Structure formats: C-alpha cells, structure tokens
C-alpha cells in the first residue's frame, strides 16, 4: 500500500514564471551513418536559433546552464556523452549536467532546466536530448533496452521490453476491453493515426499510409502486440530554450515565437510492475471517489489499482501538474496533447491516468474521434487532438530527445507555426524526403494550452509538461 504524507502532496511551486521561447530538432531516422551525434545536436540548436531569427552564436550568449538528456550510454559506447556534446556546442565553461530517466529522459531534462530558471539560478537554460540507437543491430538494441528492466528478475525473460508491455496489454484487453476484437481494432487505429500524421511531418522516421487491417496483420512481436503497435528505435536530437520573463521578451523580440509559460509535474513508480501494491486511486480535479466504487463490478478484475493496467507515475505527474496550473478537466482546458505512445496499449492506459477519460473508458477517446486533428466521425476539429507529430510510433523514439520533441511540437501549435515549420519545402528537401501531395496543415487552430507526457520503463518515471499562452492562463498565481 502506498500512503502519501501531507508533505509529499505539496503542490509544487516555482519561485517565478518560466517560459519556453524556442526549440529545434534534427531529422529523425532509424540510422544516420552520415552524421555524428554532435552534428544532430547542432542541427537542433541551429534550428532553435533560426526560429528566433538569431544566429546560433547569439543564442548561445544567453545560455547560462545546460541540461542534457541521454538515455543509454551503452548504446553509444560513450560515457560522459554530455561532456562531448557540451564541448562541441562550444558552451564550455558553463555548468552542465546529464539527466537519465529512461524513456522519460527528455521530459526530465526539461524539468531540470525549468527548475533552474524557476529558482533564479539561471535566466536562460538549454535542455538538449539525443539518442543514437543505430550503433548496434536491432536484436542487440532490444537487449540493451531490456537492461532497463530489473536485470536479475525480468531482463533474462526474453530480453525484450515489448513483452513487459504485452502482459499489460493482455490484462487491459481482457478486463477493460472485455476481450473484444473491437478493442484490438481500436489499438490498431492508434497506429494508423500516428503513422498517418507522421506523413505530414518532415522530421518523422516512419510515415505510413496504412489501415487497421495492416496493423492487425503485421508480425506478432509479443501477443497481443504486433510490430505496428510498437514505437520506433530512432536516431536524432531535440532541444528547448527555457527562460525567465525578461530574457524571454528579449529573445523573442524579432521572432514570431511568443514566449509560452511552462510547468512540469513529475511522478514515479516501481521499476518492476511485479512490486506494485494495491492502493486507492489518487483523484484528479475532475474525478470523485464515488465514480470508481463499482469499477470492479463494471469490469470484473479491474478493481486492483494500479495493477497492470494503470500507470501511477503518470497519474501523479498530472496530479501535481494540474494543481500547479489550474487544469480542472484536460479535455476542456487543454487544446492538444503529445502522449508517450511507446505501444498502442500504453497510449490508451495514459488517457485514463491523465484524466482524459475515467479509468476503464480510455478507448472512447479514440472511438469518439476526440483524439484526431479532424474528427473522422463529424468532420469537425477533434476535441483534444493527440500526437499530431506522429508520436513515438510514427515520428520517432530517439529516447533522450523524445520528450523534448513532444514539448517542442506542442509549442509550435501555441506559436501558431506548425504549418510553417512542417510544411517548409526546403526542410523536406534537405532531409531527402518527399512532401506528400496530400500534405495537410495539422495546426490546431487557436491552440493556447497543451501538454506533453514523457514516460519511462513500464511507468517508472513520468513527467507532465504543461505549456500555456501567457495571456490564457487558468490560474493567476500559477
């Protein structure tokens, strides 16, 4: 049983407002034999400067501290990779630190940069993340990723992380999906959506025009998960520049980027799902204890929380994040999401953890069409579009960069620059990619608030990064 003390449930408070002013990313791909990691990081930083109409040298002159997200030293066979990148970015002798929280590394890196600015230590911090997962063959890559499970108790069981998600998928499908084929099809629809949105994203590693049937016929990796249910293994880098108000105004004076307010909530849970003890559901502002009283009756076997079907870390990240920012109901208060769709099943689990739907009813977020840019059922804008970047399934999972890519993607909508950045003919050409004839601008019209979820392991660390147009805050003292 986990019981929280009053101190543990303190609502995090930042000492001053914090802003994200720009960001950037490299091309994402399965392998990049023609580029070293530092070239990818410089690509991302140069793009961030470009969005401010500044040179990289000008932007560098504002940076006071640097936070570097890199998940796996063993993939790159390079300890202190942070020092290499910091050096190649020419940021010595500024203080810098490496951040590692598995799949949540990108979100955690931004969390650290935000705290540095919030505390007054720095007025401008760089959050930069990268990964290169092309330095070993895929089966060895799976082995290295599985090393993020408990090496004595879990990893030897197949050395494949998909398996650890598949047991969750099986339990969720049978309890909350009532073992229906229609639930399996809903999972497949998520993959179709994310590969489809990736087609509009020149940075994306896996754009595909596919059908539900294609997903259901793709090779089984770990039943019930198939190849097209799974995230990518990518190479790439992404960055964000985090500032106080004065610096944010100065940095954006010649740019279409409006500084956006940024907050990060963070949660955790046991590395091994095996260790997750039964507990009461921590409630979000839009939930009541009564609504879950009969959960086990409605979904027999579904009364064990979080069991193998919920992510307590995600729940706690938004538990803090929503209270910091005044979010009451994410579907009403936010305009878009970027979720950590490591697998189609974890996407659905997360809808419930973050309160987009109550526990047990996550599938409705997809089936209602609310998660789309344009609801396929009504032809109208989706109520709360998610993963318009293509997510981890369609865009990329270059682990240390992933959470930063998601945050950057949300910001591009609030800056109202999604179409300009993703539709740029030159960018498609520079990346050696063909812009599709049916390219569509996925800008969420009038987007003022959004959230990105960055998630590690089988839910060991999660961050919830909330971005808002400063003229559309939900809480005066946020």
């Amino acid at each position, binding site marked *: *049983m986990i*019981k929280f003390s009053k101190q543990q449930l303190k609502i995090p408070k930042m000492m001053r407002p914090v802003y994200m002013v720009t960001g950037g990313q490299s091309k994402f791909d399965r392998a990049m*034999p*023609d580029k070293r990691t530092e070239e990818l990081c410089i690509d991302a930083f140069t793009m961030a400067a470009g969005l401010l109409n500044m040179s990289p040298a000008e932007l560098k002159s504002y940076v006071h501290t640097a936070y570097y997200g890199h998940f796996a030293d063993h993939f790159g*066979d390079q300890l202190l990779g942070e020092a290499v990148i910091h050096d190649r970015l020419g940021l010595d002798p500024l203080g810098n630190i490496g951040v590692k929280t598995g799949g949540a590394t990108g979100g955690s890196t931004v969390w650290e940069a935000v705290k540095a600015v919030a505390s007054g230590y720095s007025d401008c911090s760089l959050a930069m993340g990268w990964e290169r997962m092309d330095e070993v*063959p895929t*089966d*060895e*890559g*799976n*082995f290295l*990723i*599985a090393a993020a499970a*408990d*090496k*004595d*108790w*879990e990893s*030897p*069981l*197949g*050395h*494949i992380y*998909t*398996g*650890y998600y*598949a*047991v*969750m*998928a*099986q*339990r969720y499908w*049978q309890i909350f999906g009532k073992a229906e084929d229609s639930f399996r099809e809903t999972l497949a629809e998520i993959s179709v959506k994310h590969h489809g949105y990736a087609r509009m994203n020149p940075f994306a590693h896996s754009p595909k025009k596919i059908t539900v049937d294609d997903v259901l016929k793709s*090779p*089984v*990796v*770990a*039943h*019930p*998960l198939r190849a097209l249910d799974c995230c990518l293994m990518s190479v790439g880098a992404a960055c964000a520049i985090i500032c106080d108000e004065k610096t944010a105004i100065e940095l954006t004076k010649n740019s279409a980027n409006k500084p956006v307010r940024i907050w990060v909530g963070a949660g955790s849970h046991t590395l*091994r*799902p*095996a*260790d*997750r*003890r*039964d507990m009461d559901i921590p409630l979000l502002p839009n939930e009541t204890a009564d609504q879950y009283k009969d959960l086990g009756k409605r979904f027999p*076997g579904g009364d064990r929380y979080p069991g*193998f079907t919920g992510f307590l870390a995600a729940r706690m990240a938004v538990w803090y994040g929503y209270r910091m920012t005044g979010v009451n109901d994410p579907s009403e208060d936010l305009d878009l999401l970027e979720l950590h769709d490591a697998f189609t099943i974890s996407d659905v689990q997360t809808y419930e953890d973050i309160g987009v739907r109550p526990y047990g009813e996550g599938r409705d977020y997809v089936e209602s069409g609310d998660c789309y840019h344009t609801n396929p059922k009504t032809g109208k804008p989706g109520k709360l579009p998610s993963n318009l970047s293509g997510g981890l399934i369609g865009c990329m999972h270059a682990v240390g960069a992933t959470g930063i890519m998601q945050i950057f993607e949300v910001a591009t909508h609030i800056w109202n620059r999604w179409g300009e950045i993703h539709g740029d003919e030159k960018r498609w050409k520079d990346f050696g990619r063909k812009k599709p004839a049916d390219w569509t601008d996925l800008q969420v019209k009038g987007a003022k608030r959004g959230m990105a979820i960055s998630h590690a392991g089988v839910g060991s660390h999660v961050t919830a990064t909330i971005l808002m147009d400063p003229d559309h805050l939900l809480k005066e003292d946020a």
Partner: protein
Amino acid sequence: MSMFGQVYVKDNKYKLKGDFHHLTPNIPIRNADEGWKLMGVTNPRDMTYIHSYGGEAPFFEALGEGKLLATRCDNPDCEFKGTIYEPFRIHCADCLGKNTIIDITELAKTTSKVHTFMVCERAGAFNILDKPVKFINIEFEGIATILMSYLSVGDPEIGMKVLPIFRTKNPTCTILDLSWVPDGTKKEELPEGFTF
C-alpha cells in the same frame, strides 16, 4: 587455450581466473554508394561482468534446491508489518527495516494463479529461452506483489492455476531456474533438469 572467465570470493575479495574479454579487430564501415569511402568503424566488445546478488543471493541459491523464498516485514513499528514480498525485497519498502526470509514453496504450490500473460514471438540478443517465450505474472494468496516468470508447459490463461518447478539439475543460479506449469502437469512432462 582460452577458458571462460570464472570468479570466486575469498576474504571478501573477487578472485578471477580465465579470460574475461576477447580481442576482435575493428573493421572499417564503407559506403557502397560513394566509392567505398570511409563512414565509420566497428567496435567489437565481448566482456564478462562480475555481478553480486548481495542480499538476494539466498533466493537464487534456493531455486536450485527446489524452494521458493520470499521476504516479510516483521518490524513491529512498521505500519505495514506482515507485508510479504515476492519478488523478494531485502528491505521493507515502507520502513526500510531488514525483512525476514520465508519459504513460500507450499503456498505457491496451492495458491498460484496467472494474473496476466503474453506470448513472445521475438526476443532480444542473448535470450536463451525457447521461443515463443510465455511470460506469466503470478499472484499468490496473502502476498502483496505479483511475480513475473515463464510457463514451460501448455498455454497460459488469466486465472489459470499454476505450479512452480525448479531447475534442480545443473542450476544456472538465475531467475530462469524458476518456471511454472499448469496444475495437473505430470512429472514426465517437465522440461529437462526441472523438478516440482
């Protein structure tokens, strides 16, 4: 002649014998599309790690003896005294006191059920289990946690009663020495080296 790296402990120090790594040359990576120009180099690694089980060593030793050990918090000052952990936790998650090691072999033989499962068609490098691997997560009566392991006979289902089996012949001293079979499985159906 090379031999696998071997280690034993004497006077609380590791004593090493044999080869812990093997030399393999770097090989250039060249671009077939551009006149075989140099792109990079392979960096071969073949290493043996030396890993301590620390306070979990009794658990792994016991598997080869046909016993399943767990731990229990017996700290009278702990709010959650009496909580039993499998996986075995050396210290209580709540009070951080040292847990008591208990034998739950009989409890496992009578109350183990499949909580969830999956059938894994692919595996990562260095996997030594037969494919498809059948992961099962096992719930026990009176135990706070749910153990991950694998099924060696038959096909898993949620709620299925299962029995532990142990690699008592040539144990590997890893978690793979513990496996499970459906209730009712006969002795002669067990995989080579395993016993009830």
